């Protein structure tokens, strides 16, 4: 028997432990990248084996935060895929402008890069004051960091380039202060943002919104979980609401394919039908 077979068993046991003890279900994550994250977490936390991680997560409840942070943090950037934000600005926000109040759900917000990107878009289009952004993630550590809006200064150049390519009307540096190798975004950008813990694997609808952004989250899920989450999104959207997915994500081959029209293929923007 190869070591890898023994490891498979330890991974399955770890997933069971996390679910039984803490209610977090990673069984429906795509296994290959989950395994890579779990191995990295094992190395970072100094555990001798995945089995040792399982014991620690059982014996030491405070360790859970670190585990969730290690298993769920996608790396993002502001205005990632700038054409998507350009399309949101040019095509979607003018439609949302007709609503008296705009509600947006950023699902899987991680460190908040896209939350601030969205806030800046709304601000520049004169819609921020009537908007509410719900930014959710299952990872409390990431949510706290998202709420702080602090990023390494080494990212500023990439963020600025993306912002300009997304049709930015000013300079991105107008929105942050640079200090000690860090940039911190203006507090005012989050005055209409609610950061909240929400687990797409287990939690339900919590708001009715006109736009959902969930980018590069579904790629980590298997078919079953992806369909569950997409149904949740469908049920959270108003009639003719928008869903924006990651650049390599699609509604093709999913159970909600017929509930949406493609609004802009390259931006992965879909629009909910009327109920049939």
């Amino acid at each position: 028997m190869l070591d890898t077979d023994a490891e498979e068993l330890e991974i399955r046991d770890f997933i069971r432990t996390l679910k039984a003890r803490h209610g977090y279900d990673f069984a429906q994550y795509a296994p290959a990248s989950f395994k890579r994250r779990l191995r990295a977490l094992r190395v970072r936390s100094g555990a001798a084996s995945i089995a040792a991680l399982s014991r620690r997560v059982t014996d030491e409840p405070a360790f859970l935060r670190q585990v969730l942070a290690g298993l769920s943090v996608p790396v993002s950037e502001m205005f990632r895929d700038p054409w998507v934000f350009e399309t949101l600005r040019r095509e979607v926000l003018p439609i949302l402008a007709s609503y008296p109040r705009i509600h947006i759900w950023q699902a899987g917000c991680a460190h908040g890069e896209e939350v601030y990107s969205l806030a800046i878009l709304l601000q520049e289009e004169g819609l921020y004051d009537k908007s509410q952004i719900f930014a959710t993630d299952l990872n409390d550590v990431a949510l706290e960091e998202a709420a702080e809006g602090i990023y390494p200064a080494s990212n500023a150049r990439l963020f600025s380039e993306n912002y300009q390519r997304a049709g930015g009307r000013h300079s991105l540096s107008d929105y942050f202060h640079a200090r000690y190798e860090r940039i911190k975004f203006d507090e005012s950008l989050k005055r209409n943002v609610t950061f909240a813990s929400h687990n797409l694997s287990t939690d339900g609808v919590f708001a009715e919104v006109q736009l959902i952004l969930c980018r590069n989250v579904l790629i980590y899920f298997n078919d079953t979980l992806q369909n569950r989450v997409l149904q949740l999104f469908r049920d959270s959207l108003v009639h003719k609401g928008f869903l924006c997915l990651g650049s390599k994500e699609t509604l093709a081959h999913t159970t909600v394919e017929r509930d949406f029209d493609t609004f802009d293929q390259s931006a992965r923007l879909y629009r909910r039908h009327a109920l049939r």
Partner: protein
Amino acid sequence: MRSAKTAAPRVVVIGASVGGLEALKQVLGALPADYPWPVIVLLHTSAGYRGTRLDTLLAQRCALPVREAEARRPLEAGVVHIAPAGYHLLVEQDLRFSLSVDEKVSYVRPSADVLFESLAEAVGVGAVGVILTGANDDGAAGLAAIRARGGLAIVQDPEEAQAPQMPQAALRMAGADQVLSLEAIGARLAALPGESA
């Protein structure tokens, strides 16, 4: 237990970086239209094709259909699957692709190490790993993972490679079953399915 050697699905995976576009055209150009195995190709964006569609560029020189790999879609026999720019590409045990935007590995995303390691775990002895020209060390650890599980490792002769570092790193860390010229790699990949039938 893993399945017996004859039962393992065979998959060819090719990693390349600087100089890789021309090298890939030559290698893929040698494969016949009825090639019976899936082929996965990973070319670093630093190789300079950014902004151009790699599948289009390669399809001109290849008898097989060339398509970008998509999350959750199955590997297909006789199709050249291309790793999309900006995402790690992985192969799952059920021989479907998955994508991730996790941290760069070996300073790159997509990383050949990530792809090769996942394929090694998915098909074991069925993996055929190929490292071509490139100016970094990506793919060496992945090729070692393929060899550790009994898969086949082919490395482009560094003497011939436009950028020798990637083949050299692979030979240093993983070694190889064969070190060949591009022309010979194409011929070897084309001949392999007939030999294992």
